[in-house]
C-alpha cells in the first residue's frame, strides 16, 4: 500500500518499558518494545488480555507515563513533555476513541463532537461546519441533537469517532473501539475508520483483541507478555485473506499455552 513509497515515520517507539507496582510485586507490562508507524498507516495492535496492548496505547497516547524508553510523535518526544505542552499536544495531534464511548452524558452529540474544538477555542462558525462534515462522513447527521443515552451503542461509538476526527489529528488512538458493539455496528465503525484512513490519510493506531476488527488494518502488531511477538502486513491481499492470516498467528500464539484470543 501507500506505506512503501511514503515512509515518513509519524510515530517512533524505542525501547519502551512500563513497570507497575512496587517492591516485591512488580509487573512488567511492557518490556523493550520498539516499532514505528508511518504517516497514513492503519495499524492494529493485538494481544491477549494482560499482554500489555492497552498499556502500550496509553503510553503512546500520553495518558500514562512510560518507565523508560522514548516515544516520538511527529518528531516530538512525548515522554519528556511538560503538562502544559502535553495538553496542547493532545489537542492538536491526537484523537481518542475509547472502548466505552466516553461521551459526556450532559451534552448532545453535536456538543460532544464540538468539545475538542471549543477547548481549542475554534470560532463557532467553523465549529459548526466541521461538525456537520465529520458527522456526514460517519453517517450520524440525524442523531446530532440527541443525548448519548438516546442513541444506540454503535451511534455513540461513531459520535466518539467523530469527536476524535473533528480536529484533524495527526494520529487517532482507538482502544478496543468495537469491544462493546454488535457485529453490524462494529462493521460500520470499522468501515468508517478504513475509509477515513484511505481517503483522508489519517494515521490510526487501534488496539483490539478481535481478529475481525484487526483485518481492516494495513498492519498488525502482535504483543505477548509485554513484547512484540510478530507483525503482519496486509500488502495487497484482500480483507478476507488477511483475516485468515491473522487467525493463523492467533492460533499459533494460543497454541503455545497463552490464553485463546
Amino acid at each position, binding site marked *: 500500500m501507500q506505506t512503501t513509497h511514503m515512509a515518513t515515520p509519524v510515530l517512533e517507539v524505542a525501547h519502551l518499558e512500563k513497570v507497575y507496582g512496587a517492591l516485591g510485586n512488580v509487573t512488567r507490562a511492557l518490556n523493550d518494545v520498539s516499532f514505528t508507524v508511518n504517516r497514513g498507516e492503519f495499524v492494529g495492535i493485538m494481544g491477549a488480555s494482560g499482554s500489555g496492548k492497552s498499556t502500550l496505547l496509553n503510553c503512546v497516547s500520553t495518558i500514562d507515563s512510560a518507565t523508560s524508553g522514548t516515544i516520538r510523535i511527529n518528531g516530538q518526544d512525548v515522554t519528556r513533555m511538560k503538562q502544559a505542552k502535553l495538553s496542547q499536544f493532545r489537542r492538536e495531534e*491526537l484523537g481518542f476513541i475509547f472502548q466505552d464511548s466516553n461521551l459526556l452524558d450532559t*451534552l448532545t452529540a453535536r456538543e460532544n463532537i464540538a468539545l475538542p474544538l471549543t477547548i481549542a477555542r475554534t470560532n463557532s462558525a467553523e465549529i459548526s461546519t466541521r461538525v456537520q462534515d465529520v458527522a456526514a462522513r460517519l453517517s450520524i447527521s440525524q442523531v446530532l441533537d440527541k443525548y448519548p443515552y438516546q442513541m444506540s451503542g454503535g451511534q455513540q461509538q461513531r459520535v466518539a469517532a467523530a469527536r476524535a476526527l473533528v480536529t484533524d489529528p495527526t494520529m487517532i488512538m482507538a482502544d478496543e473501539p468495537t469491544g462493546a458493539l454488535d457485529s453490524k455496528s462494529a462493521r460500520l465503525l470499522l468501515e468508517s475508520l478504513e475509509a477515513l484512513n484511505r481517503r483522508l490519510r489519517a494515521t490510526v493506531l487501534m488496539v483490539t483483541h478481535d481478529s475481525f476488527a484487526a483485518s481492516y488494518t494495513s498492519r498488525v502488531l502482535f504483543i505477548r507478555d509485554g513484547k512484540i511477538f510478530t507483525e503482519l502486513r496486509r500488502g495487497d491481499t484482500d480483507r478476507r485473506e488477511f483475516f485468515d492470516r491473522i487467525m493463523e498467528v492467533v492460533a499459533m500464539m494460543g497454541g503455545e499455552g497463552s490464553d485463546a484470543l
Partner: protein
Amino acid sequence: MLCKLAWGNVRRAGRDYLVYLLTLTLGVTVFYAFNTISMQVDIAGIDEEGLAQVMGSMLGDLTYFLAGVMAFLMVYANNFIMKRRKKEFGLYQVLGMGRGRVATIMALETVIVSVVAFVAGIVLGVGLSQLMTFFTASLFKTQIANFHFFFSVHAFNLTLVCMLVMFVLTLLLNLRAVRRTKLIELMGAERRNESIKTRNPWIAIAIFAVGVVLVGVAYYRLLRDGFPLTATDSKLQEAMSQFGITTAMVTVGTFALFWGLSGMLIKLLQSLRSVYWRGLNMFTVRQLAAKVNTVCFSMGVIAMLLFLAITSVTCGMSIANVMNENLERYNPVDVSQTYVYYTPDTLDYYKEYVNPPEADRMVLADTTVDLYPAWHGKGKSVDNNDETGKKVNIADVAGEHVQIDSYLSYPLGGSNPSVTPSEMCKTMGEKLPKAFGGSNADAMGLFVTPASQYNKLRQMMGEEPVHIGHDQYLLTCDMGGELVDMYTKYMAGGHALTLGGHELKPATDKSDEDTAAIANSAMGSNPGTVVVADELLSQLNLQPYSSSLLVKTGDGYDRGRREH
C-alpha cells in the same frame, strides 16, 4: 466558553449537584437562623438582662462548632461530586484541556453552586428565623407584642464569611485533587472503589475496645466532675482543662469505636458463613466494605452531632423550664429596691459583690435606713430599662409595701458569722451541698431578719403569719433544691442555732421557699436567712447588711416591667 461549560455542567448534572446544593443550602439556612437567635429573643420581647449575655457567649462557641460541621458536610458533599466527575475531568484533559482550565471550570461550578446555595439558604434562613421567633417566645413563655419582619445583618455577614472560607477550602481541595491525580487514574476512576485497606481484624477489635473504653471513661469523668462552669473560680481553669481532656477522649473514642466496629463487623459477618453466603448478603457486606473508610468517619460525626443536638435541646428546655417555674417565686412583688450597707472597713469587699449599677444604693451606715421615705418623692425611675426614661414617683404607684432588713449574724464591728452553712452541715453530719461551692456563703454566714417583717411579707402574699417565739428561729431560702432541703432538714431535725449566746429552737419543721424572696431577682435573692423575734434581734445589735423595699403597685398603675 468555560463559563458556559461550567453552567451547562451544573444545570445538566443536576442530580449529582442537587445533593451538594441541598447540603449547602441547608447549612446556610441553619447557620443564618441560628445566629439570629439573640435577635429573636429581642423580638420576642424577652428582656432578661443576663440572658442576652449568657446566650451570646454560648451561641458564639456553638457557632464555631456549627461552622466546623458545615465545613465537614461541604467537603464531604464536594468529594462525592468530585468522585462522580473524575472521569469527566479526565476526559477534558485527554481532549487537550490544560489542567489550569479544568481547574477553572471546576472553580466556576463551585462558584455557581455556592452562590445559588447561599442565596437560597439565606432566603430560607430568613423565613426560618421568623418562625423560630415564635418558638423562642413560647419557650420563654412570653407573648410577642409587636412582631415585625427582621433581617440580621450580623448573622448575614457571619454566614457570608463562613461560606467564603469554606468555598476557598473546597476549592483548594479540588485543585489539589486535579493537580495530583494522574490522567490514567481519572480515566479509570469509575472502576475503583475507595481504596480498601483490609484491616487486620485483631487490630480492629483492639481499636474498637480502646474506643469503648475511652468513651466509657469519658462519661464516667463527666458524671463525676459535672459541668466545669459550676467549679469555683480558683479551680475553673483546672476544671476547664479537665473538661477539655474528657472532650478529647470522647471524640477520639467515638471515631476509634466506629473505625474498629466497621473493620470488625465486616470480618465478623464474613466469618458467619451461613449468613455471609445467603442471598445477597455477600454483596451487601462487600458494598459496605467498599465504603468503610468514609462510613466510619461520617458515623462518628453523626454520633457526635446527635449527641450535641440531644444534649443541647434537653438542656435548653430544662433551663427554660426552671427559669419559668421560678420566675414567679423570684419576683414576688412588682417593684423592689435594695440598699446595701457598708462600713469603711468593708467597702472594698462589698464592691466586689455588688453590681456597679447598684453602687448608688450603697449606704455608709451602722443602722438600717427606712427605705420608703428615703425613696418616696425622689422621683426615681423604678425601671432602669424604661425606654422612655420616664421617672416614676414611687408614691404614685405604691400600694402595699414591706421592708425586709437583713443583718449579718455577728455584732457591729465583728467579722465571724455565728451561723454558717458549713457549721450547720457539721451539726447534721452531712456534706455541704454542691450549690455552695465557690460562693462566699461561709464568709458571710446566714442573714438574720426580724419576724415582723417576714410575717408582713407573708401576709402581703396571702399567707398566714408564723409565730416565732423569743427562743425560736425559722430558716428561709428561695434558691430551691438542695439548699431548701438542707434548711428544712435542719429544722425538722430539731437542731439548735446559737446566735449571740442565745440558743434557739426551730419554730416549724419546714422552710417555705415561696415567701422567702427578699427582693425581685432573676436567680433568687435569699441564700439563707434566720428569722428571729424582733426583740431578740434588737438586743443582739447585729451588723446590718441590706434593706429591700418590696412594693406592690396600687390600682391604676400598669404593672408593666419589673425591676430586679
